[in-house]
């Protein structure tokens, strides 16, 4: 065995999946070749460092809650989406053929809590805009309902702050904008269920 052949087998050698006979040949080469031995040691050390990422435990109660949420959402939208099970054929720059594109149809579940806030903020914006439009066109008398509602509008700065953060995100990541707002019906239903 030479150094080149050893390199071909190093991945499987260091993860322990190489056939025993071949592994023995590799080990014999490593014993006689300090550069290859150092490389093998680096690779083993790389895998060992990855062992520094321990798994975390989630309580069974929390997992049962997640199961109930998933079941309720599945009942609300029982149809299986093709995209649930089949690979995205769209391709992606850094993915092999057959894998989904990173910026593909958004799955906004991760931001569901913020989504509820954004939805509230968006609704508020619409209502406020409609109110302003009404004020502008109808020109109600001073102190009328239009002005009163506008001035008393209970805007939560935090909601608007989140909305602004998400809105501004479009400036730094074009793909994120479409993704952020690309909730399909199923996801909206699930978000509603998640958030009670």
């Amino acid at each position, binding site marked *: 065995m030479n150094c080149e052949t050893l390199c071909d087998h190093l991945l499987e050698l260091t993860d322990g999946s190489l056939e025993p006979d071949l592994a023995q040949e590799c080990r014999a080469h490593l014993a006689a070749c300090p550069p290859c031995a150092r490389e093998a040691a680096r690779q083993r050390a790389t895998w060992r460092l990855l062992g520094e990422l321990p798994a975390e435990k989630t309580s069974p109660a929390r*997992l*049962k809650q997640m199961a109930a949420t998933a079941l309720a959402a599945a009942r609300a939208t029982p149809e299986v989406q093709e995209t649930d*099970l089949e690979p995205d054929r769209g391709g992606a720059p850094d993915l092999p053929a057959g894998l989904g594109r990173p910026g593909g149809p958004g799955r906004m579940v991760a931001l569901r809590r913020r989504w509820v806030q954004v939805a509230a903020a968006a609704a508020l914006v619409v209502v406020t805009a409609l109110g302003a439009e009404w004020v502008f066109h109808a020109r109600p008398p001073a102190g009328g309902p239009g002005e009163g509602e506008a001035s008393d509008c209970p805007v939560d700065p935090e909601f608007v702050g989140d909305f602004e953060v998400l809105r501004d995100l479009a400036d730094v990541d074009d793909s994120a904008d479409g993704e952020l707002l690309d909730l399909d019906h199923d996801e909206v239903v699930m978000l509603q269920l998640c958030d009670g």
Partner: protein
Amino acid sequence: MEQGIAPDPGQGWMAEFQHGDDAAFERIVVHYGDRVLAFFRRCGADRSSAEDLAQEAFLRIARARDRYEPTARFTTWLYRILARIAANDGTRNRWRRATTIRQGRHDDDPQPGIPELAAPHAADPATIASVSDLRARVRAAVAELPESQRIALVLNRFEGASYDDVAAALDLSIPAVKSLLHRARENLKQRLLPFLQQEVLDEL
């Protein structure tokens, strides 16, 4: 390497679920839940995002109730779902997005659950004061990998998925999976080199 999801009772539970036993679905989630969450965490998602991604995975399993066919091991099917969610959702994008949101705020407003992104290029072993620091470096190095490399790496090294399983999950040939893992390891090695030197010294 951690061992795979074994035993693999999911197939039987899925059959029971198909016959109307919702408790079987709960058993699936309780049994595989930690591994599903760990998969997304190791792909770079913060804890809150990992929970949401896992929730999506469970939803997909639940919605596949009538359509699931036990033609392969349950875990192989599960890996495929996880890989698809990770690829489509772009855990790395989510990581970046979470960081962007954090940076967009002015930073007396720390957000719980959003990770501090380590600065791998500024890595200096002398500054690594604790195991948790080292974990943060390793986590960041994994999160920086190209998506397909990251998914293959996490499935293979942490979930114990065989090359066959990774190939099925990613729609790739086995040589392509080996190539991905080789590149992932090389990338990690470069990113973690300052720490590897000490590790290698310890080993030799």
